[in-house]
């Protein structure tokens, strides 16, 4: 009797499942023609902004909040050189910038622009002691504040760390997101692939000049080939009838495929001095005439890391807290990936209010 019942249950379950999937598949196929229209609705940044400073390809955006800013000390966001910075303001409900603007911070973002052949010989020193220094000096004049708050994401965090070490008198608080500091770890594939036995960076840069966006794009795809080339399209097809999923997906894919070239000399320095020789943690990183000494960082530090980050694992960011001289320092390891740390729903709801609060308590 039981066996017969169990057989009938299995048959019913199969039948129900088949019918449900059939109807859902019909919904999925019906949604496909609307994809181009949804793609057109993707915007690159949502918070109102104005350009307040330009230098060569660089632009600084000022984000306009409701009413006057509550805090005099401005906040300057610094992103990486390999992607466009609008990931920090991806869409409604997925914007780090909006959190700070709504909290009353006078918020600015550095957009490095798209380098051309003319920028081929720019070095890390040009970015840190040239562009960043000029921007910070401008913000000081504009706001009347002696210092600025810095928030750096990924490579932008590494640049912000170097800047703070060299110009601590200009930085009030430092917030870092998934920023690479200690490259001795072999957890991340990129650290393995840039090993000098397998990657001749001099030959690469001397031949290519600027590192092409396509090369960077291919390298990032190859870090997780199954997830990027198999799982992602399957997930899209499975959820193509869900508007919110498709909107998130299109926004994210637009940004992920919006790589920009990296100036050759910056790439050479990062590959050699950081990935291969790990000079930053040894306090021997050369930047023009200067040597970066992390012990000179004394300002409050908030170090945010992603537990499942395959690009910048925690072991690459965590050591910074022990290398600086700051007494007020905190680290948060969040269960997310490299991008999820910034834009996932849970991070937006739980992590970013906490990060904003941290800065509110330390800013006048």
């Amino acid at each position: 009797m039981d066996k017969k019942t169990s057989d009938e249950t299995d048959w019913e379950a199969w039948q129900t499942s088949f019918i449900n999937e059939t109807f859902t598949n019909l919904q999925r196929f019906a949604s496909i023609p609307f994809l181009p229209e949804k793609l057109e609705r993707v915007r690159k940044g949502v918070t109102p902004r104005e350009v307040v400073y330009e230098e060569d390809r660089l632009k600084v955006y000022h984000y306009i909040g409701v009413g006057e800013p509550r805090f005099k000390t401005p906040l300057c966001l610094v992103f990486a050189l390999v992607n466009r910075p609008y990931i920090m303001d991806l869409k409604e409900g997925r914007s780090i910038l909006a959190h700070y603007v709504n909290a009353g911070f006078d918020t600015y973002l550095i957009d490095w622009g798209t380098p051309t052949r003319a920028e081929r010989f720019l070095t890390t020193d040009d970015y840190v002691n040239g562009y960043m220094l000029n921007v910070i000096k401008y913000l000081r004049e504009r706001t009347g504040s002696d210092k600025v708050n810095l928030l750096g994401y990924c490579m932008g965090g590494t640049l912000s760390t170097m800047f703070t070490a060299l110009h601590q008198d200009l930085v009030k608080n430092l917030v870092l997101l998934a920023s690479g500091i200690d490259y001795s770890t072999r957890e991340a594939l990129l650290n393995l692939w840039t090993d000098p036995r397998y990657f001749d960076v001099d030959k690469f840069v001397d031949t290519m000049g600027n590192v092409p966006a396509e090369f960077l794009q291919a390298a990032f795809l190859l870090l997780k080939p199954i997830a990027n080339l198999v799982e992602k399209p399957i997930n899209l097809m499975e959820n193509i009838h869900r508007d919110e999923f498709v909107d998130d997906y299109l926004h994210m894919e637009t940004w992920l495929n919006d790589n920009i070239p990296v100036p050759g000399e910056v790439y050479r320095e990062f590959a050699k001095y950081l990935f291969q020789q790990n000079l930053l943690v040894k306090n021997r990183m050369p930047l023009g005439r200067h040597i970066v000494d992390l012990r000179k960082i004394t300002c409050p530090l908030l170090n945010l890391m992603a537990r499942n980050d395959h690009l910048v694992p925690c072991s690459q960011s965590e050591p910074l807290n022990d290398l600086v001289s700051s007494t007020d320092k905190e680290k948060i390891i969040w269960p997310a990936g490299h991008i999820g740390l910034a834009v996932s729903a849970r991070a937006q709801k739980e992590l970013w209010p906490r990060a904003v609060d941290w800065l509110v308590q330390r800013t006048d």
Partner: protein
Amino acid sequence: MSDNMNKYFDQVAAFQKLWMDSFANMAGVWSQFSPGSPPSDEMRKMRGGMLQVLAETWDQYMRTPQFMEMMKASLNGALDLKRLARDGMNRVHEQFENPAKQDIDDVLLAIRHVERRLLDRLEGLDDRVANLNEKIDKVDERLVKQENAIVRQRETSNAGAQKARATPRRRTGAEHGPGN
């Protein structure tokens, strides 16, 4: 020659192992199939499991020296080809007396060197001006201190003089002389 052949065979063997491991691991996940729960959910779980083991297998493979040697060889090959093509085009441009990309790069490099020299000089001047400002500030401070000391001294001596005028003088014998 035999070293290269050995390296090549190592790479092929590693690549073969990757595919065998991938299918074996996926089959392992498939064998855990239990038809108790709704079929579509079960299929999704299995698919997720298979893709996860596939991802882990490929991740392990991409960490092997054989894979990295293969990447190195392929990248170097591509760079050599690009260099050959570029050198060829440079020669063609040279023959036609046209500017080539190399010439443009050389000009950019020259501008960069000039820029670098100027910026270094400016930084040096900046440092010197900062030093001079410091010295001037110190001199200013010293001057202010000295001025204050002079003013205090004057005030002290004025006060002393006023006090002396206010206090009546006791006449001495000399003052009480015949003409006084």
